[in-house]
């Protein structure tokens, strides 16, 4: 990879693509966007089914438009920044973001914090929509709620696409394709099923995305600081494996801690009785 090149906002030919980066970039962008789109869909479905589809869809489409403009604007703005500086800053932000996701996914897998429940979120949002008074014509509540949730979840997607796309030369294409594919799949499933996608293994996806983003962040910070990676670009796969093993070991330790505490408490209760 050319260390001094700026991160151009352009589409490369498939043959020119660095697949050691492009493959994990596409996967990370797709899975992260899938999780966020599923969460947004739950609220949009609740709004649409209670208050009508027209304003819920207009609100969602308006937010998607703003987000697309944000991606294009940020992409252009970052195009002039030297790649090492960009990699350091984006890598650090990606690490803060990715390690936070991974930590949460580890704690959810270990049963320390509750798993996100799409059915419960749908019921809660639908009830809150019902409690608000109905209106004729333009429904500002439906529009604003759909707009807000799509903006909220979409901001995370924008950050992931921009961070992945700006981190290396020729990565805008896989990063954008991953996010667009996730958006289209979730929209299609939402239209087909008309109910929240509760069967999507959200925490497993977040676990994988956390691992991928942490690996990217670590690699780009190293590139920005001009570290020498053994195996060069392929060491990103080693980092993915390393974070995966560390995360799985941490889940096992957290689970065994919890089990140990529970069995100690049970023994103490039995002795005191």
């Amino acid at each position, binding site marked *: 990879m050319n260390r001094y090149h700026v991160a151009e906002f352009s589409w490369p030919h498939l043959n020119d693509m660095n697949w050691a980066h492009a493959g994990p970039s596409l996967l990370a962008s797709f899975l992260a966007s899938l999780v966020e789109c599923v969460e947004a869909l739950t609220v949009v479905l609740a709004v649409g089914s209670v208050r009508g589809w027209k304003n819920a869809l207009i609100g969602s489409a308006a937010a998607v438009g703003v987000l697309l403009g944000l991606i294009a604007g940020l992409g252009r703005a970052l195009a002039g920044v030297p790649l090492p500086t960009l990699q350091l800053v984006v890598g650090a932000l990606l690490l803060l973001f990715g*390690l936070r996701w991974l*930590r949460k996914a580890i*704690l959810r897998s270990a049963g320390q914090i509750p798993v996100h429940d799409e059915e419960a979120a749908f019921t809660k949002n639908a009830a809150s929509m019902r409690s608000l008074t109905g209106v004729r014509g333009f429904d500002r509540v439906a529009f604003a709620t759909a707009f807000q949730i799509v903006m909220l979840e979409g*901001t995370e997607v924008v950050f992931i696409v921009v961070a992945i796309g700006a981190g290396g030369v020729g990565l805008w294409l896989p990063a954008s394709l991953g996010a667009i594919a996730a958006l289209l799949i979730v929209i299609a499933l939402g239209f087909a099923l008309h109910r929240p996608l509760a069967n999507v293994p959200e925490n497993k996806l977040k676990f994988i995305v956390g691992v991928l983003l942490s690996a990217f962040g*670590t690699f780009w910070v190293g590139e920005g600081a001009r570290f*020498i*990676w053994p195996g060069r670009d392929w060491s990103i796969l080693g980092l993915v494996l390393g*974070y995966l093993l560390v995360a799985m070991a941490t889940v096992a330790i*957290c689970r065994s801690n919890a089990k140990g505490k529970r069995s100690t408490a049970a023994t103490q209760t039995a002795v005191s009785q």
Partner: protein
Amino acid sequence: MNWMRTIFREVFGLFVDDGSFAVLILAWLGLTVFLLPHLAWVPRWRGFILFAGLAAILMASAIRYARKQN
């Protein structure tokens, strides 16, 4: 100004939910990026040291949280 505060809080929340976890990550990045190049170690170890520190911070933070919960 209220909406500005909301946007700032949401964007900040993307990167930080446990303050000490975020501070430790940034401190480790600062140490490795600015200090390691001045040490006359084998340059090939720098990437591994960066990863090992971040992995240790992740592990310690998750285990500490789990212990507190139990």
